[in-house]
């Protein structure tokens, strides 16, 4: 009784914040839901009308739709593999003490703090440019014809850029995790005659199970929304070679000014993200709770 009375004013005081948060979340979602049932072309506002689920049908039948789903999966999947495998490898290497360790670690982590648009520009113009880029220079050094990265290997190039951005995040997590690895256990294993690979396989890797789960979860959430890198480098092309779901929504909304189809696309992206989240949580939740 007493407790309840005491709680009430607190609850009341929390109300505005909660209501704000709810509105923050619900209003955009409700508007997206509403617009997804309308025929609404920004260029012809007078003609909007209720069309039911037609926008969804339109979005699913759009020529680039399946390509964009596939590209999204390939992009997220390969960046995850690269960052997790590469991240573990690099962090195990820099875990050993060596002179200049601090600086090396700082440098390894620094790409993460560069804005996506900036790193995309750097990669596009300074590194991968077929005429003036650094890679072209290296290629010419060996007498090879420079590769026109973003035209000939568009998806691979985007994956490279995005991996470069997210590898530091993985390294950051893994290095921190490795520091909590029990040194006595390590010595004991060494005394038992375990060599590098065995130590890695039976000590380090199991120790990293949770950090891996965290990295995969956090990255998957952000990688589903990769947009700036694609917009800056390839603009979704050539053709639709690098169009992922967010980029497809963007083309509907801002190149074709079709608000209805773009809203429907936005909702499809939400559903897609949820499906992926469910899988990931199932998969990773297990490894988190098992131990």
């Amino acid at each position, binding site marked *: 009784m007493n407790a309840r009375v005491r709680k009430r004013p607190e609850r009341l005081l929390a109300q505005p914040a909660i209501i704000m948060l709810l509105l923050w979340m619900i209003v955009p979602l409700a508007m997206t839901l509403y617009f997804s049932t309308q*025929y609404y*072309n*920004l*260029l*012809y*506002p*007078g*003609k909007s009308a209720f*069309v039911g689920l*037609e926008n969804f049908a*339109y979005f699913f*039948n*759009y*020529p*680039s739709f399946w390509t964009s789903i596939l590209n999204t999966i390939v992009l997220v999947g390969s960046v995850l593999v690269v960052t997790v495998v590469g991240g573990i490898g690099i962090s195990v290497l820099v875990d050993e003490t060596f002179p200049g360790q601090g600086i090396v670690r700082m440098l390894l982590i620094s790409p993460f703090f560069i804005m996506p648009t900036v790193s995309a520009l750097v990669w596009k113009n300074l590194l991968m440019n*077929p005429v003036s880029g650094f890679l072209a220079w290296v290629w010419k050094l060996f007498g090879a014809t420079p590769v*026109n990265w973003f*035209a*000939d290997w568009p998806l691979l190039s985007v994956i490279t850029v995005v991996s470069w951005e997210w590898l530091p995040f993985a390294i950051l997590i893994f290095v921190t995790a490795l520091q909590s690895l029990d040194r006595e256990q390590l010595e004991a294993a060494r005394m038992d005659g375990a060599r590098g690979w065995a130590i890695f396989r039976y000590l380090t890797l199991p120790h990293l199970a949770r950090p891996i789960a965290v990295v995969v979860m956090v990255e998957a959430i952000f990688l589903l929304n990769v947009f700036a890198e694609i917009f800056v480098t390839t*603009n*979704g*092309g*050539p*053709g*639709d*070679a690098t169009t992922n779901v967010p980029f497809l929504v963007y*083309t509907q909304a*801002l*190149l*074709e*000014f*079709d608000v209805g189809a773009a809203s429907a696309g936005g909702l499809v992206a939400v559903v897609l993200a949820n499906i992926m989240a469910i899988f990931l949580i199932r998969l990773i939740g297990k490894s988190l709770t098992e131990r």
Partner: protein
Amino acid sequence: MSKQGTRSSWLKTTAASAALCALAGPAWADTTLTIGTVNNADMVRMQALSGEYEKSHPGIHLNWVVLEENTLRQRLTTDIATHGGQFDVITIGAYEAPLWGAQKWLKPLDNLPADYDGDDLLKNVREQLTVDNHLYAVPFYAEASITYFRTDLFAKANLTMPEQPTWDQIKGFAQKLHDPEHGVYGICLRGKAGWGENMALLGTIVNSWGGRWFDENWKPQIDTPEWHKAVNFYIDLLKNYGPPGPSDNGFNENLALFAGGRCAMWVDASVGGGTVSNPKESQVAGKVGFVRSPHEVTDKGSSWLWVWSLAIPASSKQGDAARDFILWATSKPYLKMVADKYGEESTPPGTRESTYANADYIKAAPFAQVTFDSLKAVDPAHPTLKPVPYKGIQIVSIPEFQAVATLVGREIAGALAGRGNVDKLLHTAQGAVDRTMKRAGYYDKKPVISKEATP
């Protein structure tokens, strides 16, 4: 950020200077005009010269937003369609002006002052910006597409460019002049995806093969032999005799290539003539010939008509100052000022009869005559052999065109980069465009839009 500040200070000063204004005539209160424009050479010059305007109009400050064409279009369209009111002066083309004018999104520019000499504007150009006898934008420069070619290379190879070449002849020349070993490519053409980029050129190519976007009942005509022939020709030509990576090149990229001496031929907007003939900006100045754009089966619609123009959104709160500025930037004294500062050949082309009556200009600008002839010859109402329900040569004057041409343009740019088969993609595009038109209601009833929207 600064917007808030200027607006409140604007309010204050208007109140204060209202009385002054009544006495002192057209003195401008502290006004900031936000001008959205595209990063083409002529507009960049306008920005550079705008200091003169600010000097002669104390109180008016100009805030420039200069963007790349596709980005500008997005910003302007979202701003104007949602009545955002961010811009006081916008740079729009022959596609937007009539559509947006019909929507009442632009302030009509009636009663032009006598010294502006509105009758001096080219008729064909003025018509592009007029809806129901109201002018909604004033032309800043107008362009047709023409053929640029290197006279020195042609002479060396003993070739003669005809006055009105066909695409097949162009291909023959490209074959002979293509010399990538020495950094010269047979032909440079737009390949960058976008309805205002690759589709502008491709629109004229399709027209000259007798193809059209829609038949009289608004059924898309993309999966037709004319389109297949035209698109295959274009991709074949550009892939074999073009610069590497053509799917990245738009107008500005090709202009840089041609001015840098990398292309033997180039078919694009006549407005590039000023840059390629200017020795300061071009390595090939004096070595460039200009003829009409190529045709094939028909001459109709083989050269596009585009007008970059200045307009005032209906949402602008500083309409009077904005009107004063756009009339200044398209006036005869402005053209003269550009000619004095940057040379005769840099005069913004294609808008005024008086420009072409000026012997100095004709002499200084070797591309002037062909531009003038092309601009007068084009007929947006009859862009190809068969009748069409729309107006426009490289555009279709309906709101859905952006969606349709963006999609097709992207697919073709993909095919140019070696992804996907042309015949398949045209078939896919046909289906997609058909769906867009069905969704927009063109088949169930008489299309209300096209009637309203057609200028």
